[in-house]
């Protein structure tokens, strides 16, 4: 169905080809996973299928790509629209119209299908993707998971024979990701659609793949094979494979079920051993300078402050019965949350549960409708930004928003000025966290993970005791994720309180002391990571599922215990 014949792609202005020696065939009706670390050209390979590479991106494509017998060299993307449906990384960039129903119909309208066929397929697709209740909603008001489903639906309606998806589940909560994958599974089984998808979160998709195409390194030829065989040699692998490699299982298990069936001896070996837990925080950060300006309105104290007033605030962040209403929607209600210095808290919950709103409230972007928010001694939404950066720092979902300058050096200099830090502070932090980035690099040219680290360094320049991260692992490969986890762990050890909103259960398992589950703007669970995460199947990491009932969370713990 899809055939790559010795394809190499060289973009204009680069000496090395982005991919080369790509030579494989995807038979009809298979679900093929494209895996590999960041920057190996996965998106390039996906783009070549729909003809967007090179027709839209420029560059030179050598070799031949054929889809359903059509050569992409002679067929423009629009002439392949009836056989290939492509969904890019950002669903928002994909939408042409403004409501769900129109969006589903758009592709069919372009292809000139008959009105009654269009009507039937729109209804079918609305049901298939669970979008019936949203049919007339403006797309701008949808949550991330809903948008992703609409984007997939919009390319499904013309009934393409090939579906190409770039990171379809990265932005989704575990349940929504399962839904999307179940839909893909159903398309492959019922309609015989050929699916080619790239995904960093292999633990979510690898068990559905019929074949895996691995791009091991930039410029290296792809490895094609059965998932278990490829995972044995892959530089990127899900935790269950990691566990399998550690235990020496062969063939490697790809699903929790396979692993569990083989895990009995391992469970026995681990039975008597202590589960290593992250050490409780000991270090304390120096207190931030006193607030420069007094808050405009005098704060009323319910009771006189007990004891010596000079004592540092016991919590890095304190939220009491917080409610936030935004635009007629009750985003948060009665939220109580305290974060101690040195503690790492993971906020989890489905898309739209209020995680981002809670982070925004902690950093003063959103004023509470009722209740109180405090970050150390400051009330965030009433504190001047200059003072606030020394108390709370937020790395937003899109780290690029924080970066304005043209070069890394300028960005760091600006960060030093913003934070009143000694010149060179930010640059020193960056070098420590991410060696090998030159001063004159444009922030846009950094990889996803590098950009995140730069934004993190910018935020850390002010040394805020409370660090917030919104969805930090989106688009990161396992290596970048491990590096981030290491950085955050050492920050916590220094005494930073860290709150991360994430869908990534593996990251939460690895880092968090505590997990707070949000649903519909309420806290529905708050407790030690091991307890909360294991109690809910959707949020349990793979290792916990394999080694239940004991609460092992990560492969690193198992490795440490066995050592």
């Amino acid at each position, binding site marked *: 169905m899809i055939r790559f014949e010795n394809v190499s792609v060289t973009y204009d202005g680069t000496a090395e080809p982005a991919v080369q020696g790509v030579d494989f065939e995807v038979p009809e009706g298979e679900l093929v996973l494209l895996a590999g670390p960041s920057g190996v050209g996965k998106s390039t390979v996906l783009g070549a299928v729909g003809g967007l590479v090179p027709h839209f991106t420029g560059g030179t494509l050598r070799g031949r790509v054929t889809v359903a017998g059509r050569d992409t060299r002679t067929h423009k993307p629009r002439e392949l629209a009836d056989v290939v449906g492509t969904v890019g990384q950002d669903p928002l960039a994909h939408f042409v119209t403004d409501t769900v129903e129109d969006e589903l119909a758009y592709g069919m309208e372009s*292809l000139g299908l008959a009105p009654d066929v269009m009507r039937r397929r729109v209804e079918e697709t609305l049901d298939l993707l669970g979008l019936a209740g949203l049919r007339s909603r*403006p797309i701008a008001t949808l949550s991330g998971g809903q948008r992703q489903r609409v984007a997939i639906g919009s390319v499904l309606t013309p009934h393409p024979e090939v579906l190409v998806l770039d990171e379809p589940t990265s932005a989704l909560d575990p349940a929504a990701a399962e839904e999307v994958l179940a839909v893909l599974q159903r398309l492959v089984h019922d309609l015989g659609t050929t699916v080619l998808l790239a995904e960093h979160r292999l633990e979510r998709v690898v*068990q559905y793949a019929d074949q895996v195409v691995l791009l091991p390194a930039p410029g290296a030829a792809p490895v094609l094979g059965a998932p278990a065989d490829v995972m044995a040699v892959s530089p990127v692998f899900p935790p269950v494979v990691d566990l399998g490699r550690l235990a020496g299982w062969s063939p490697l298990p790809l699903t929790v079920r396979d692993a569990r069936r083989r895990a009995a001896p391992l469970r026995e070996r681990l039975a008597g051993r202590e589960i290593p837990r992250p050490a409780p925080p000991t270090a304390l950060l120096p207190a931030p300078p006193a607030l420069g300006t007094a808050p405009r309105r005098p704060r009323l104290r319910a009771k006189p402050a007990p004891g010596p007033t000079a004592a540092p605030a016991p919590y890095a962040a304190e939220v009491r019965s917080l409610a936030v209403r935004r635009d007629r*929607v009750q985003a948060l209600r009665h939220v109580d949350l305290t974060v101690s210095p040195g503690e790492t808290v993971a906020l989890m919950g489905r898309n739209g549960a209020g995680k981002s709103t809670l982070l925004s409230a902690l950093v003063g972007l959103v004023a509470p409708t009722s209740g109180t928010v405090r970050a150390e001694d400051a009330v965030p939404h009433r504190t001047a930004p200059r003072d606030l950066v020394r108390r709370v720092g937020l790395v937003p979902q899109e780290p690029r928003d924080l970066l304005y300058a043209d070069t890394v050096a300028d960005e760091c200099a600006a960060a030093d000025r913003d934070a009143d830090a000694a010149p060179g502070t930010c640059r020193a932090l960056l070098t420590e966290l991410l060696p090998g980035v030159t001063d004159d690099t444009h922030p846009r040219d950094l990889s996803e993970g590098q950009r995140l680290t730069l934004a993190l360094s910018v935020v850390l320049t002010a040394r805020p005791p409370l660090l917030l991260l919104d969805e930090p692992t989106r688009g990161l490969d396992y290596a970048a994720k491990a590096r981030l986890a290491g950085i955050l762990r050492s920050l916590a050890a220094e005494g930073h309180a860290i709150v991360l909103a994430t869908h990534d259960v593996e990251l939460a398992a690895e880092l968090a002391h505590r997990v707070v589950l949000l649903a519909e703007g309420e806290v529905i669970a708050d407790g030690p990571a091991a307890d909360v995460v294991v109690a809910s199947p959707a949020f349990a990491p793979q290792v916990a599922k394999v080694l239940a009932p004991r609460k092992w969370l990560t492969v690193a713990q198992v490795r440490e215990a066995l050592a």
Partner: protein
Amino acid sequence: MPATDPEATGTTPPAGPPTRPAGSRAPWAARVAAGGAPQARRSAPTPLHPGAWWLWALALGTAATRTTNPLLLALLVAVSAYVVISRRPHAPWARSYGAFVKLALAVLVIRLLFTTVLGSPIPGTHTVVTLPEVPLPDWAQGIRLGGRVTAEGLAFALYDAMKLATLLICVGAANALANPSRLLKSLPGALYEMGVAVVVALTFAPNLIADVQRLRAARRLRGRHDKGVRGMLQVGLPVLEGALERSVALAAAMDARGYGRTARVPAAVRRTTAALTLGGLLGVCAGTYGLLTAAGGTYGIPVLVVGLAAALGGLWLGGRRTVRTRYRPDRWDARAWLVTGSGAAVAAALFLAAARDPAALHPGVVPLVAPSLPLWPAAAILVGLLPAFITPAPETAAKEPS
């Protein structure tokens, strides 16, 4: 709070690894059913044709041009505002109503300010205040700065400005009630690609505003002030950069989804299309020229008609090149007739009233009298409320994305 959002009210996510049979619809069904948002699940009645909203609003605006009676104008504003409030959807474009109301108020204020400062041609005896008059050189004869401000002058300016303000508010009502992109869908096939360009531009503006808000929030995170002109300027470049990147991505996505596919039409048809369109446009030009010059009075009209017909023929033939079909085009149904009719009735009634009883519709300012409410034109204006009762109510509650 009532359960209004299907996604948010779903119960705990389905358990275990997703090894459910491929044909099972359980997860979605469960989510939708458990969501149980009654408003969302109720089968939505088809929305009104956007053209009907525009005609209704423009008819009210036309009615407003027939009178300067502030009571009638206020009634017109009240009628359109009531319909907007009860029937506008929770969509981004519906928020433009507030902007139009503000614009209308600005018109009032500016007009009154000008009358106060520059004086008014209306003779008056009731002096409200006397401003110091600025002596002007004699080349500026006829212009007065400052001086006497009379109640008559102010009343006249107010009435006049209210007329314009009402017109603006009526246009705002149409903007809030009718989805602009659905209106553009009613364009003929040959103009479709242009229509899409306009739709994309329309959806771009809200995205741009969202970008500005996001980047200003990010400025705050960097410890800079998020308010003021400087803050605005500094986010300008990243916002434009983002917009450019998004437009490239959108162009790629649209191309990949078949935008711009053309049907193969025989070369003869293609040539005929080009000839008809070009020839028609030339004919229109020549015909207009003929009409406007004294010499061409004889051939003007026939050439214009032939040119117009040829151009329309070219447009129709050109439509054959697009393979595009329409999904659920808005139908012009009985409700659309009623809505348009109610607007037209208001306009017709005021035209009639203006002819029959001009004094009631244009209350005098010299001598200054309190305007009275003419009974039957007022009753006729209330007919304009009809759409608030016969059109479907908008769906309730929209959930903010996280």
